[in-house]
């Protein structure tokens, strides 16, 4: 009898849910940790801002599911010479006010973001560009200061803004009431609460999947999970690994995992303190059990790496041998260097997972060093980490992504001498990464990065730990494949029965 009731209930439930599912989903709600800082895509480049505004704007280029750079607003491009590249522009794209997108808008967007008067924090991503000029309504010519292979990867991040509208309303008003050519147009930005977008019906790539999209600002992760479980949100981001199981075990929700281009790494100061001795740095590399970190602290949501770079990047190589976990060898190296009991300062801030930092501290202490953790707020952390080598601590944990899927965006800023992050100098290494960023031959670049990674392995100014997996919580019916660059394009999502 009991069984009978249960099966009736199950059938009834199935019927109810199936009728509910038959209706199309009109409003998609996404919980982000913070509110948008600016909706002007040429101002702030932080995750919470671009997650929203990249749905309002189109980019000149984009990446397909495999990470390959493919056309978006530009249909094709050719190199006229090493510093000049000509883009053909689609002629069927309209902005959300109905006006046509032309080469004028593309050239304006490029010249706007490189104009120092805009004070854009993104300038450094585009400062290799000399200028953009209109050739005809569907052709734009871009010149760079020197040959610059990462240009296309950077242009994936360039949103196209409407020249006429921006010039008419001014920068301030444009930020508050943005207008783009993307799949969604802005309806209302309730500061600190949410941003509401509405489908742009004449979007050139077809009808967007949801009538409305709401991005809410929910800082606390437990609250985001509660929102997801109660259906107040359909998609949430930044789920910590230890909360993954509560989302997986709920029958209404599921966990989405994105194997990102982000790499968790350990910086080691090669210019000051006990870590100035390469044997100490190598000892630290031997002392760390990467698989152990991934299994114990990330619940398996990560993949150990041998280099400072993850698989989705151009220039990734598996030819470089990693440092196996070998605490005895590490202890021997420390003894050989005469560094037993030497104090190494481990810089960190609340932005980095504390448990991971402590686990690394423990592992390194076990082989004979004395690691002390110095935690400060993020601004102070950056000031020290990016400042002079003497005051930059002995080690620090970081999780790096350039959102450009190219080794140039990772190991150039991290280890090229003269860069703010580098506490390391090796002329041979500098020459390799310098050359790799100024030539366009892909095979040649790959071999240069393979050599550069070999040097980094030998010198250990930094140690790749693991590829970061981005975790999202989603409603059961949401279909979406997270990408390596952690972008969230609503156009790629759908609602399935």
């Amino acid at each position, binding site marked *: 009898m009991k069984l009978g009731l249960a099966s009736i209930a199950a059938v009834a439930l199935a019927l109810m849910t199936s009728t509910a599912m038959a209706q199309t989903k009109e409003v998609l709600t996404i919980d982000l940790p*913070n*509110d948008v*800082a*600016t909706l*002007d895509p040429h*101002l*702030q*480049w932080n995750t919470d801002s671009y997650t929203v505004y990249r749905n309002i704007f189109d980019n000149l280029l984009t990446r397909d599911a495999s990470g390959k750079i493919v056309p978006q607003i530009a249909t094709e491009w050719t190199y006229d010479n090493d510093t000049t590249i000509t883009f053909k522009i689609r002629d069927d794209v309209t902005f959300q006010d109905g006006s046509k997108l032309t080469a004028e808008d593309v050239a304006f967007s490029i010249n706007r973001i490189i104009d*120092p008067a805009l*004070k854009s*924090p*993104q*300038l*450094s*991503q585009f*400062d290799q560009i000399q200028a953009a000029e209109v050739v005809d309504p569907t052709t734009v010519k871009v010149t760079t200061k020197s040959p610059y292979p990462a240009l296309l990867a950077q242009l994936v991040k360039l949103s196209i803004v409407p020249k006429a509208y921006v010039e008419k309303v001014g*920068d*301030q008003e444009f*930020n*508050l009431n943005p207008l783009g050519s993307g799949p969604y147009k802005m309806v209302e930005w*309730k*500061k*600190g*609460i*949410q941003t509401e977008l509405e489908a742009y019906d004449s979007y050139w790539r077809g009808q967007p999947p949801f009538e409305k999209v709401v991005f*809410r*600002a*929910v*800082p*606390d992760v*437990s*609250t985001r999970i*509660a*929102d997801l*479980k*109660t259906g*107040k949100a359909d998609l949430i981001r930044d789920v910590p690994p230890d909360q993954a199981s509560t989302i997986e075990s709920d029958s209404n929700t599921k966990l989405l995992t994105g194997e990102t281009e982000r790499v968790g790494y350990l910086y080691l100061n090669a210019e000051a303190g006990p870590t100035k001795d390469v044997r100490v740095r190598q000892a630290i590399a031997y002392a760390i059990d990467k698989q152990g970190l991934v299994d114990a602290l990330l619940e398996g949501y990560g993949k150990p790496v041998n280099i400072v770079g993850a698989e989705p990047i151009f220039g990734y190589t598996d030819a470089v041998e990693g440092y196996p976990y070998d605490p005895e060898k590490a202890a021997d190296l420390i003894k050989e260097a005469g560094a037993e009991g030497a104090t190494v300062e481990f810089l960190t801030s609340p932005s980095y997972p504390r448990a991971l930092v402590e686990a690394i501290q423990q592992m390194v202490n076990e082989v004979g060093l004395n690691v002390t953790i110095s935690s400060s*707020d*993020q*601004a*102070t952390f*950056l*000031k020290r980490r*990016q400042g002079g080598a003497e005051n930059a601590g002995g080690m620090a944990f970081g999780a*790096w992504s*350039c959102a450009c899927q190219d080794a140039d*965006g990772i190991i*150039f*800023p991290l280890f090229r001498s*003269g*860069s*703010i*992050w580098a506490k390391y100098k090796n002329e041979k290494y500098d020459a390799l990464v310098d050359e790799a960023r100024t030539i366009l031959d892909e095979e040649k670049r790959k071999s240069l990065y393979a050599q550069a990674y070999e040097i980094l392995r030998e010198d250990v100014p930094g140690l790749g730990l693991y590829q970061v997996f981005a975790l999202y919580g989603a409603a059961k019916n949401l279909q979406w494949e997270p990408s390596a660059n952690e972008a969230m394009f609503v156009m790629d999502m759908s609602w399935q029965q």
Partner: protein
Amino acid sequence: MLNYTVQRLVQAIVAIFGVLTIVFVVMHLSGDPTLLLVPQDASAEMIAELRHQLGFDRPIWVQYLDYLYGLTQLDFGDSVVQRVPALDIVASRLPYTIQLAAGALVVAIGVGIPAGIIMATMRGSAIERILAAVVVTGQSVPTFLSAILLIFIFGVTLRWLPTSGAGELRAMIMPSIALGALSMSTFARMTRIAIIDELGKDYVRAGIARGLSLRQTVFRHVLRNASIPVITIAALEIGNLLAGAVIIETVFAWPGIGQLAIQSIQSRDFLVVQVIVLLISFVYVMTSVLADLVYVAVDPRIRLVR
């Protein structure tokens, strides 16, 4: 009386000015927002360039004088992160904070004062012991825990109330309770002590001798006399409720100035922080001035002493 008011106001302005200056200096000495604004691959020259454009490379006293000059023009400056006037940002968040503080105050006073009265007049009863337990709980459970528990019970399990957000009345219930709990306990305790204090006085015995019931004595005479310390607490609590909602606002995704303050401090958005500090110190100082003036109105004895 007028002299007294003017004197209090001058003190208030000096206090606010002091707070403003200290916060300005501390914020600026501990680094500027440039490093947090630039993308990670920025070069040292790019950072220096942006710092110069934003004006953070000037000596701190120049920046301070510049800021003060702006204040005299009622210009509070622009947020370096959002690129809009700092005053507009804070003003857009303020209504939410006031709503939440009002909700919490309703919980605190609506529950706290009756609870205090009952605990004072029904000493030794079972109901007093139950109320005492409630009061101690409200006082000792940390807000981040009570907030998450409320969300889990009423939001996720029972699904009576929305788990987060602002805009509908229902969404206000849980944050108001979580925020008001501590103040509720304070009100209950203060009311109880003040009434017990008064109950021992001669006029109460005289009233009862005249044939009034305890209830009549309390409502006609005791409450008015017991209200002085409670008003002091109320003034302080309003300040606390406006400024102290940081955790509650973060947990419930409530877009008030507490959450804004935390985010602005983290991103070193100086001018937004300054406006918030200005506002909170203004509220604190003004509520205490107001409380002083209310005493005088409520209790003629204070007026006579002056």
